[in-house]
């Protein structure tokens, strides 16, 4: 089944270069501003870079390149394909 290949994670648990899809259920945890900048449920998100001190995270979502803090990223659940 397809869900065997999917693991629920957050943006904060991605490794550099990995991708995932923002899950529908995290809608309430995404700040409005981030939503407006393209960080939408269902969107593909890629972790581009992690700052040297492990925070913030540099992500690419819906064509937007954004830096967000780990605190925010760890609330946004994603579906990751293994």
């Amino acid at each position, binding site marked *: 089944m397809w869900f065997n290949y999917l693991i629920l994670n957050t943006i904060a648990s991605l490794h550099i270069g990995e991708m995932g899809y923002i899950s529908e259920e995290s*809608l*309430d945890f*995404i*700040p*409005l*501003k*981030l*939503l*407006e*900048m*393209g960080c*939408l*449920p269902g969107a593909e998100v890629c972790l*581009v*870079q992690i*700052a*040297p*001190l*492990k*925070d*913030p995270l*540099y992500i690419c979502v*819906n*064509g*937007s*390149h*954004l*830096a*967000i*803090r780990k605190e*925010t990223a760890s609330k946004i659940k994603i579906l990751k394909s293994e």
Partner: protein
Amino acid sequence: MSKKDIKVALIGNPNTGKTSLFNQLTGLTQKVGNYPGVTVDKKQGTCKLSATQNAIITDLPGTYSINPTSIDESIVLKTLLKKDIKESPDVILVVADVENLKRNLLLFSQIKDLEIPTVLAINMVDQMSRKGISIDLTALKEELNTEVVLISARKNQGIEDVKATIIKCHVAAKATPMCDNKKIDPAYFEELKAINPNYTLYELWLMVTQKNFPEGIAKQEREQLLSFNKDVSKLRKYQHKETIYRYQEINKVLKKTYLVDKSKATDVRAKLDKVFTHKIFGYFIFLLVLLLIFQAIFDWSSLPMDLIDTTFAELSDFARSNLPVGVLSDLIVEGIIPGIGGVIIFIPQIAILFLFIAVLEETGYMSRVVFLMDKIMRRFGMNGKSVIPLISGTACAIPAIMATRTISSWKERLITILVVPFTTCSARLPVYAILISLIIPDTKIFGFYNLQAFTLLMLYALGFVTAILGAYILQKTLKIKSNSFFVVEMPNYKIPSVKNVLFDVLEKTKAFVLGAGKIILALSVVLWFLASNGPESYQNAEQNTIEKLADTNLGVDAVQQKVAAAKLENSYIGIMGKFIEPAIRPLGYDWKIGIALITSFAAREVFVGTLATIYSVGADDENTTTIKEKMRSEINPATGKKVFNFPAGMSLLVFYAFAMQCMATLAIVKRETKTWKWPLIQLFGMTGLAYVCSLIVFQILK
């Protein structure tokens, strides 16, 4: 502004080339003013659309959405919600970046729902083929039901097209909304719309979510609108739903009109990011950039600064010898000319600093610095974005404090504002320079490093460390709840446009000269008055001194010097200096330094000028020529020791490093924090710290 000029508001996301377009449209007609009641700069310019039609173009701050999260962004909403005929725009020009069209269209969709005639300018189309993007322009116009223009503002392409379209859109004005919030919850939004039919549904919705009411809204309607605000979680949910709905609509449009061939995308950005945000090279490069900025601020500016200095000195001399003797001439020669000079002298350093900051921002590098520094700065209660103000602070605290506006968390912004004045601004430099040369021997340490230069470096470090520690203490003590949500866009790397950079430097420098300049100039005049007037004893000082010296065979010059010294001692400022002498004696200062301390509250650099006046008139030895030598030979009559000995000099250095001695900064802090509380805390906190530390330094070294 004539009546038939079209009022155009320029709106767009940050990093879309909005400024480039504004510069192309308006050129040198730009003017910066203030929005009433708020401090955000309002940039306006005139544009000749056709032979008979002009437009007044207002450049609004860059924003991702109408829903504001910082002061800059709130201006956009305020301007758009205005219904009065004079201020509200006739046409809105939305600028979008071709590469990020989807996200840019979110803002566009919100604007469209305000039902104001809108033109969409898609910028940087010269990049399309390189990025593999293709747009079906006709279909896009139809789908969006809007005039769309493809432009490249930097290359000056499509600008005429924009002008023609503004006229066309203004004439044919028929604005239709793009999204209909009723689709989210029909009953809820029907009820909202019923409150006032003069406003569009989206406008009413914005009033509810942002609690921002235009003047046309009656009190009763306002209360009705506020009642929608009670259920916060529902409101939030609907805002989320609205955003998703907007993106759905945008995706529908783009699917039919916009195509990206990803295989053509080149990845310069990724390669540069690897270097600039690398855990070692990243910081190393940032350090190099900082060193370059400091080097430039001090090295490149020394020549023009010397030039300005001598020019104003000569101007004073010229005015003195050519104006008739009188109070007005004294005011001009001793008050106004040095006052203006005191402002102009900072222009080279400030312009160079602004130049660097403009270039770093234009290239997109600044966002990488914010990314690198956020975690470190957060430990001290600040924000990655605080780095820019702290760098700017080394030139002048005033633009630095204004640069904190982009920080959306109030607590982090306030802490940044409060600690910025600790960084060593250029006004401290002349003070440090003269004191160091007096008390630190000109020798080399470790065989090669100049001890005086090393001391200066240590003073810079002291300022910076104090700022950081101060922030840490404030973070622990300030009980302010504010959400520290942080998001920064990492824009594409770009080669900076010369025009944009120069316009930016020009505009900011002008704002500094006019803003801070007024205060410094006014205070210089006040100081001049206090130094050249006094009670009865002042009036008699000249007579008494001449009588006292009648028996001695001093030359005319020496007598005049004695007279001037006596006058100063008995002037209002001299009396103030004497009055505070008991308080500053434990720090190792006499009343003359007291005068310099008082005058320094206008601006620190006045210290040198004041001492120059005091000691050039006070010294006995006629062989001494320079101010420095006169200061060195000054003896304190009470102790019989030199006034500028090592302990007193060190104590003064520490005092100037910490004390809040800048009226202009206090005025700006008041303006930015909207209360006198914070500037007063700065004034007493920093000056108190300065007093205690100087006391300790002097008492230990004594």
